[in-house]
């Protein structure tokens, strides 16, 4: 028997009503928006992507649950945030990424990217990108081994690298690639081709995603549609992806105008690599982005700028991941200098001038 009976009327302080949209609602909608991209990735790469997603999902959710248990917090899986992390991580890994390495990425992402900071809301960096950055440094070859999309037998067999035994290096797949791909697949991403050979992939291929790349980063058009769904439901601040894309285009444009052969055109910048996925689903992560409109625009533009600078002048072909992580890192600083101006103070300033 409870000591206190239920009160007849409750006494609270205002407001007495609230909008019925919780953190879980928002996160669940992000999950829903990512599902079409996952489905498309499965269609492109088959069973390997299913296995990859399953392993990443299991490790991410398991790690989240484990750390919550160890620190005595209630089961956090209901807020769907670790599901988002798992989906994003799976979509940003190469489709044939060895499963044991994917498990490492999932564990590191949640453990070091989120749990150590205190769980949802307290993480500084996007956990999925922490996981990916870790495996990028740890397994530089595997993370740049690409499989051709729509290869023959993708629904009956796996990409040979998928089932690499733990702590072993994956087999070379050049021969396998030659055997299964129809049109002389080079194993290079459009970004690498552009950077080193100045060959630009056709825009159509980039939009529908039939180019080499991570499992879910290639279909630029589909990602855009899914992102717009979230923006229209007010579950994503549209200013962030727009600022990222704007920043990238404005940074690239002068270079392209100077030397159109050497440097990519702005449309290529937008549709290639992980820019779309990063702009709409990772940079826009609420926890790691600033609070005010001004802050968000600075943050987005910074990510777009850094992405293009890394792509054009860095050693790597792709810069979205590090750009977003750097953006996350500068969020507290941006927040500090873009505090909203209190109502009535702006007017005063204008008057005194």
């Amino acid at each position, binding site marked *: 028997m409870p000591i206190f009976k239920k009160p007849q009327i409750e006494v*609270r302080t*205002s407001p007495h009503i609230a909008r019925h949209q919780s953190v879980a609602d928002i996160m669940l909608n992000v999950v829903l928006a990512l599902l079409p991209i996952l489905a498309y990735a499965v269609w492109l790469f088959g069973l390997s992507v299913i296995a990859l997603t399953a392993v990443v999902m299991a490790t991410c959710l398991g790690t989240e649950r484990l750390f919550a248990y160890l620190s005595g917090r209630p089961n956090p899986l209901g807020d769907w945030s670790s599901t988002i992390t798992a989906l994003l991580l799976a979509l940003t890994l190469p489709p044939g990424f060895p499963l044991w390495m994917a498990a490492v990425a999932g564990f590191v992402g949640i453990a070091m990217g989120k749990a150590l900071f205190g*769980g*949802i809301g307290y993480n500084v960096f996007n956990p999925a990108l922490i996981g990916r950055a870790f495996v990028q440094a740890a397994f530089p070859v595997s993370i740049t081994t690409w499989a051709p999309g729509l290869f023959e037998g993708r629904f009956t067999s796996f990409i040979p690298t998928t089932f690499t035994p733990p702590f072993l290096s994956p087999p070379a797949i050049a021969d396998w690639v030659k055997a299964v791909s129809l049109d002389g697949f080079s194993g290079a991403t459009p970004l690498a081709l552009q950077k080193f050979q100045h060959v630009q992939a056709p825009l159509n291929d980039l939009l529908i995603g039939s180019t080499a790349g991570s499992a879910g980063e290639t279909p630029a058009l589909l990602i855009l549609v899914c992102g717009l769904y979230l923006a229209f439901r007010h579950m994503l601040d549209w200013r962030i992806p727009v600022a990222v894309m704007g920043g990238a285009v404005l940074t690239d444009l002068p270079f392209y105008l100077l030397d159109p052969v050497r440097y990519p055109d702005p449309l290529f910048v937008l549709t290639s690599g992980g820019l779309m996925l990063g702009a709409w689903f990772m940079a826009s992560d609420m926890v790691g982005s600033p609070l005010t409109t001004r802050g968000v625009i600075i943050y987005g533009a910074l990510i777009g700028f850094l992405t293009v600078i890394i792509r054009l002048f860095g050693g790597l072909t792709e810069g979205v991941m590090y750009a977003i992580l750097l953006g996350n890192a500068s969020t507290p600083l941006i927040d500090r200098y873009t505090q909203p101006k*209190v109502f*009535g103070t702006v*007017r005063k300033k204008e008057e005194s001038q």
Partner: protein
Amino acid sequence: MGFLKPFLRASFRHGIHPDPHKGDTASRPIQRFPFPDRLVLHLDQNIGKPSLPIVKKGQEVVRGEPVAVADDFVSVPLHSPATGIVRGIELMPTARGPKTRAILIDVYHGSTQEVLYSVKRPLHILPRTDLLRAIQETGMVGLGGAAFPTHVKMTLPPGQEYEIHTLVVNGAECEPFLTTDHRVMLEQTEDLIRGVRYALEATEAKQAIIGIEDNKMDAVHAVAAAIEPDDPITVQAVPAKYPQGAEKMLIRSLLGLEVPPRALPASVGVVVSNVGTLAQLGYLLPRGEGLIERVITVTGAGIKRPGNYRVPIGTPIRFLLEEVGFEGEAAEIILGGPMMGMSASSLDTPVTKGMSGILVLNEKAIEQEAENIYPCIKCARCVQACPMYLNPSEMGQLAAKREYEQMESRFHLTDCFECGCCSYVCPSNIPLVQYFRIAKAMNREKAKA
């Protein structure tokens, strides 16, 4: 979006769009309420000094007779809403919590609705100071909820060099569920315009703008039709958005002026008064009567006859709910609107001058609030909602750590007027405005010590 401006109604920035819930009562005409057996007149129902009682236990009073006088400039008299006998002056429960002194009046059975006491004045020849005194003697306070004495509001703070150019008449009624101002504008249009004319005289403002939310276009048209051509009065529709009825927000919407932090509207040359207040003033002043009743919206789950009622001040809400027929389980009874109103802790709490509605919420309506509090995910919805452009997100995190002074020194805590937009939108269920109230109280305590 600048090119759209001519097509959009000017408004303040940020704010929220709660479900208005006004359909149940908006079309119901104001009905007169019967007298309860006993009236409870709190002496401190206005902002400022409590009224000073001038009646004794056992004394007979008639409807409209003063039972307490203003004890100071910032104070108002109280009038007996019914004919009856003074039962005593006792401590009675208030909506705020603590019991305070109130005059209890036992109403005679069959007490007349006719007002038996009045002091008529030749209003058209009164100088401004006497007009202000006449306003004070009606016992008038802001009926929108603040209960600030009306005559004080219309008097300029001494020693200030402001010049009042505009009287803003607040007909926004942005709180969900409430429809009293709406009905008053429709049914007491003449009184309202008369009241606006008195207020123009009292404030010496050059013009008056009546701002009404655009979900009440019938009121906009009714009020516009009642204005004489030589009146310096205009009506302006403003977008329905909470908290449009907050003084500073409405001034910004109508005039594009922002009142500086911690300053009064007078600092930008504006006085704001509620339509309910001015309509009542326009009714009482020519008759020389005092404020003894007010219009209240009674609505919510389980109310059999929701509507707008003209209720004697001092009617206990227990009697009120019995009369309108209340059935079912109430989970919460709110005095005022759901965004800024107070929970009633006792059914013996009486109707006061500043109470604009009684709203009953059941279990289902407040279910959401009982859920867990999640960590802040920095979604910035509170920042996008705050009409004062504060940072509720950061303040909320500081409040959780009890860093109340930092909230003030770094994030302008005192500029929060507790509209509740931040708590309303928070997907993590963080009681932000509730935190801020505690923080303000703690800072006040510390300042005193």
